[in-house]
């Protein structure tokens, strides 16, 4: 079997016959590139109660349907993405609704409770034992005392049991904090279970017992967390009662006879009598709770249910509870009750005028403010061994919440009033702190100097100075003070901060104020401040204890400082980074810095480059065998970013030198090495562009150096896939720069990699076939190496695959077929494409008959290989596919006078096993016929006549 080239009519685009317009067009039903979309039509299933569906109006039906879809997971036909979208939509609707009641939205700027909750739980912890008194938690089975020697013992034991039973078998548990939290969660579950099993009295009892726990502050430092945990339970309870009442309170819509659930914004006159009665019963029941604190808490939890009784009941009771809280002697307990009242109050009320209770609550707190410093508290603090400042900070979460809520309903004029009150009170630091954290930062920073003076004057034992300064700093951060005061403020504040001798106090303040410095001042001031920080942190290695604050400082600087370059050349910035001695933290900080260096600035400044390299090598050196994949990737990206940033402009040699340095520094990370090779290739190409294709001696040496760089960098990359691609690319670039030897070496190296492939991803057909095709099309223009045989690279490639054991036959077939394609191109007189200034084989051999003979021989070998393959595969779909492909190649590429018989054989083979796609075969036959008519090729015509389907 030989293929005769001379009869080939097939040529590349220079042939007029094959202009795209003249290509045979065939109508198709589908676009081959279109992605497969399966459309699912959601089946709508009606609710299980068809009886109700008949009488209910249409709008309700759709509701019902929706509800069913929501509740029944089996009905979901939506894929997760559209489900998410749908959910987002459904969440939006209530938001839109609430816009109508614009007043209820005035609290939207408050920090959501969820985030407060988390931070409170994190901050207020204890290692002391906590106790819980309850009758609802069973601590395993009670151990019965078996050894009862005398009858009296027995009687006593029984009496004891009877006693404990009558007391509701309350027991006191002594717990650690984590145990306590799980117990509370258990109570929460217990409550829901009790409720759902219709034991409502038990549920109420649980709620009361929980609320009772809030009445004592036996472990002070844990109290805020306890509050958060227990109010969760109370919220659950309130919601359960409300939902049940609402479910019970169906009403008759005017004109209809079926009861419907109450709408969202129902009024009390829509509520049925029996529901009202149940609701009243609840309130009578809680009004008779003996103890004050539980009674108030449970009433607050049920506030929302007042809506069933009367419209104004809710705001009246808010007012009343506000007054009743005065009866709570423990100021900490009282302030947290107020916090809960405000929290529930703002969710319950609808109209703005009713929110006066918020102000009333804050005013009430101010009224009893001095009580915090009374004898009773002092005694308790002594007992619990707690300092006053620490105790005072326990108030902040609750007060902050109350004041923030107040802030949402008052206008700015309230602040001066408050300040005046504050000035008049003794021990006002707590109020001052609360005002600063509660009011809009804009108000505060406008009066920054005033606050500063008040802070400096306050010297009571309450909130410590550094804490106040920190709070002020946080306000200033959000909103800068008037420009003309900034300098004075900084001077005063930093003098004060500098004077803190305790590193704890110093660093918490500095951390809060640093952003102000970064945003409002130049690098000179920042540099000074950083120097001051280093000075304060160095003694006694105190920086070791404050890594987290230092980390925050750095991240604030890098996130808000405008000019990154300026930062890197600052005297005190890198020394600050040097303070991190703990390796992992240092790496994290460096990473943070590098990530935040945004903007597309390029640098060639040696100082900056050095600084960058210093940071990068810290990050790079953290990579080891245990580094997780994600982090490895992230580090790689960071380093690549830096490599791209360094740009020496037209100093190409300097640039290359930098790349050499970078390669030495970042040898552990694959992506960076790949990036470097890419960069060097780019460099090489730009060199050529600048020289307009003609290198002089110096540039020729330079591009050779580049090629050498690539050639020696690629082997150290771990990923075989990347290595393959980069070898090919580097070879192409070398060829482009007329470095034939280097190109040849690269291509050969790629072949060596190919012959030793071990990676699964590189072996995958998607990559491999595409790669081989790319490689082959490059080979078209690669001139033969005179030291080797003709078409050595191509032959080596083929032999790599013939010897390869793991490749699947069908892919091998595809590769062989592509080789045939390349060979036919190589046989042409002039190749379809060239590289400027590189003489390809067409010029080298000039279609020498010996050369053509060589190609024909090669072709024959390949065809034989394919035929063997076809035989090996045996009769199956793959076989017929391969046969039909080969058939196409022969009819289009070969001289049919020699291969006609083979073609017919192949055609028959295709059809023989019944695996062939008959449609395709018919179309193929038609297309060959059309071609033969077009070209008036008799041999082709003959072939068509012999093709039977």
């Amino acid at each position: 079997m030989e293929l005769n080239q001379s009869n080939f009519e097939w040529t590349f685009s220079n042939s007029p016959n094959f202009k795209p317009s003249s290509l045979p067009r065939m109508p198709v039903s589908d676009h081959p590139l279109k992605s497969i979309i399966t459309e699912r039509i959601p089946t709508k299933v009606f609710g299980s109660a068809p009886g109700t569906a008949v009488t209910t109006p249409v709008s309700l039906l759709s509701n019902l349907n929706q509800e069913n879809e929501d509740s029944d997971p089996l009905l979901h036909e939506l894929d997760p993405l559209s489900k998410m979208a749908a959910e987002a939509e459904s969440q939006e609707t209530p938001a839109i609704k609430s816009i109508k009641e614009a007043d209820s939205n005035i609290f939207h700027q408050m920090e959501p409770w969820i985030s407060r909750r988390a931070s409170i739980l994190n901050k207020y912890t204890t290692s002391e034992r906590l106790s819980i008194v309850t009758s609802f938690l069973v601590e395993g089975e009670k151990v019965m005392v078996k050894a009862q020697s005398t009858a009296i013992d027995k009687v006593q034991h029984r009496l004891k049991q009877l006693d404990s039973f009558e007391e509701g078998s309350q027991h006191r548990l002594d717990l650690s904090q984590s145990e306590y939290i799980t117990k509370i969660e258990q109570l929460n579950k217990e409550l829901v279970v009790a409720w759902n099993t219709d034991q409502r009295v038990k549920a109420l009892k649980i709620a009361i017992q929980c609320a009772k726990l809030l009445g004592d502050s036996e472990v002070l430092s844990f109290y805020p967390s306890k509050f958060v945990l227990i109010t969760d339970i109370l919220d659950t309870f309130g919601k359960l009662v409300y939902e049940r009442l609402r479910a019970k309170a169906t009403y008759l819509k005017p004109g209809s006879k079926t009861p419907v659930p109450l709408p969202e914004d129902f009024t009390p006159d829509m509520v049925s009598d029996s529901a009202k009665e149940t609701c009243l019963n609840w309130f009578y029941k809680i009004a008779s709770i003996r103890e004050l604190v539980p009674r108030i808490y449970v009433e607050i939890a049920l506030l929302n249910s007042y809506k069933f009784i009367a419209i104004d009941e809710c705001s009246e009771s808010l007012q009343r509870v506000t007054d009743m809280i005065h009866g709570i002697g423990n100021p900490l307990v009282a302030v947290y009750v107020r916090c809960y009242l405000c929290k529930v109050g703002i969710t319950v009320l609808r109209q703005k005028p009713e929110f006066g209770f918020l102000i009333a609550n804050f005013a009430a707190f101010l009224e009893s403010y001095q009580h915090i410093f009374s004898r009773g508290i002092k005694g308790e603090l002594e007992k619990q061994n707690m300092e006053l400042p620490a105790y005072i900070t326990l108030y902040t979460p609750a007060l902050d919440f109350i004041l923030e809520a107040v802030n949402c309903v008052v206008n700015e004029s309230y602040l001066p009033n408050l300040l005046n009150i504050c000035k008049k009170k003794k021990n006002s630091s707590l109020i001052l702190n609360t005002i600063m954290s509660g009011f809009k930062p804009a108000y505060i920073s406008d009066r920054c100097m005033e606050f500063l003076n008040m802070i400096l004057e306050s010297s009571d034992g309450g909130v410590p100075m550094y804490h106040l300064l920190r709070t002020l700093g946080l306000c200033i951060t959000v909103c800068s003070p008037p420009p003309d005061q900034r300098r004075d403020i900084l001077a005063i504040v930093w003098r004060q901060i500098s004077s803190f001798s305790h590193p704890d106090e110093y660093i918490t303040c500095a951390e809060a104020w640093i952003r102000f410095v970064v945003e409002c001042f130049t690098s000179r001031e920042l540099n000074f401040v950083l120097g001051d920080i280093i000075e304060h942190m160095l003694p006694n290695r105190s920086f070791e204890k404050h890594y987290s604050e230092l980390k925050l400082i750095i991240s604030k600087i890098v996130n808000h400082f405008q000019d990154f370059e300026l930062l890197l050349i600052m005297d005190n910035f890198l020394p600050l980074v040097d303070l991190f001695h703990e390796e992992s933290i240092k790496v994290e900080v460096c990473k943070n810095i590098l990530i935040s260096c945004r903007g597309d600035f390029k640098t060639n400044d040696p100082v900056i480059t050095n600084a960058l390299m210093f940071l990068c090598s810290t990050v790079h050196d953290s990579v080891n065998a245990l580094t997780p994949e994600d982090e490895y990737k992230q580090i790689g990206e960071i380093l690549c970013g830096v490599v791209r940033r360094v740009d020496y402009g037209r100093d190409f040699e300097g640039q290359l030198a930098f790349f050499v340095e970078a390669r030495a520094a970042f040898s552990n990370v694959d992506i960076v090495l790949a990036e470097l090779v890419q960069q060097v290739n780019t460099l090489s190409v730009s060199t050529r562009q600048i020289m307009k294709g003609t290198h002089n001696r110096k540039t020729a040496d330079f591009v050779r150096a580049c090629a050498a760089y690539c050639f020696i960098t690629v082997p150290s990359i771990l990923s075989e896939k990347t290595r393959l691609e980069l070898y090919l690319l580097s070879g192409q670039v070398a060829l482009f720069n007329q470095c034939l030897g280097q190109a040849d070496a690269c291509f050969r190296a790629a072949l060596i990699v190919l012959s030793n492939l071990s990676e699964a991803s590189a072996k995958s057909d998607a990559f491999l076939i595409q790669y081989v095709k790319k490689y082959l099309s490059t080979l078209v223009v690669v001139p033969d190496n005179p030291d080797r045989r003709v078409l050595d690279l191509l032959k080596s490639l083929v032999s790599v695959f013939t010897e390869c054991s793991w490749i699947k036959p069908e892919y091998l077939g595809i590769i062989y077929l592509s080789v045939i394609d390349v060979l036919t191109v190589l046989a042409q007189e002039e190749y379809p494409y060239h590289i400027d200034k590189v003489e390809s084989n067409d010029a080298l051999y000039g279609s020498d008959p010996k050369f053509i003979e060589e190609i024909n021989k090669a072709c024959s070998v390949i065809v034989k290989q394919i035929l063997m393959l076809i035989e090996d595969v045996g009769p199956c779909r793959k076989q017929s596919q391969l046969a039909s492909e080969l058939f196409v190649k022969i009819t289009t590429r070969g001289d049919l006078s020699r291969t006609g018989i083979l073609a017919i054989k192949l055609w028959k083979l295709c059809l023989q096993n019944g695996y062939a796609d008959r449609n395709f075969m018919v179309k193929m036959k038609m297309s060959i016929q059309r071609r033969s008519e077009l070209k008036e090729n008799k041999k082709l015509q003959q072939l068509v006549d012999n093709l039977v389907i």
Partner: protein
Amino acid sequence: MAINLEIHLKRADKIYYEGENVSGIIALSSNSDFKHEGITLTMEGSVNLQISSKNVGIIEAFYNSVKPIQLVGLTCEVCGPGRLPSGLTEIPFEIPLKSKPNRTLYETYHGVYVNIGYSLRCDIKRSFLSKDLQKTHQFLVQYRPGYNATPELPIKEKRTPINFELSPATLTSGRSGAPDFLLRGHIETVCCNITKPLKGKVILAKCALPVRSIELQLVRVETCGCAEGYAREATEIQNIQIGDGDVPHNIPIPIYMVFPRLFTCPTLLTTNFKIEFEVNLVIVFQDDHLITNNFPIVLVRE
């Protein structure tokens, strides 16, 4: 064969006034039809008096319990002997709430020694072999707002607010053991509408010892007349804490107490028995010293 007999009242709150019709439904359900000898509905209301065993001996208390005073007694036949079909049968009814001649209706009240209760009883008489069926259903009677069953009550003079001051000097027991303190208080009125809470405030002006608790105790005073004179008993209904712990000084603490529904009724004075109420303001100091101030109150329905 299970027959289920139930009485449903039309009003959810089950509260009725004198002269009104108590209406509702007798619901009978059974899984087969059955014969009966007639269905009757009886409305009953009575005052039950019990003499405390503190005043007389246990045995006497048991035997001497005064005969109940019947206030209402009305029977009507719902239907004569016959058969009832299987399934659910609902028979609507309406009975006027009227007192017996020479009796007045009092409000429903459940106390320790005095109980005033009203109920509906449905009886189904059955033939000799099967058991009779009976079901009793309580309902509540209230005065119409403004009505007062005890005209001799000193209502007018009790309407004015009361201001009081407590200090060791004002104590009847003298200043024995009490710490130095001054408590000012204010009660809006001691003649209270039973549906409205008792309101007022207390201010702790000074106190040498921390307070442990300030409480309001609601007490009923029941008096029963009997052959050997009369017995007067005071018992606690509820105790509500209004101040917990060392309360801040010079800040008004609200007095606020809702009157529980079943255990209170408008103050009632009759020849045979009396129901009166009192409120105690209790202050407990850290050293467990206890000070009580008593306020007799008059409850009316308005």
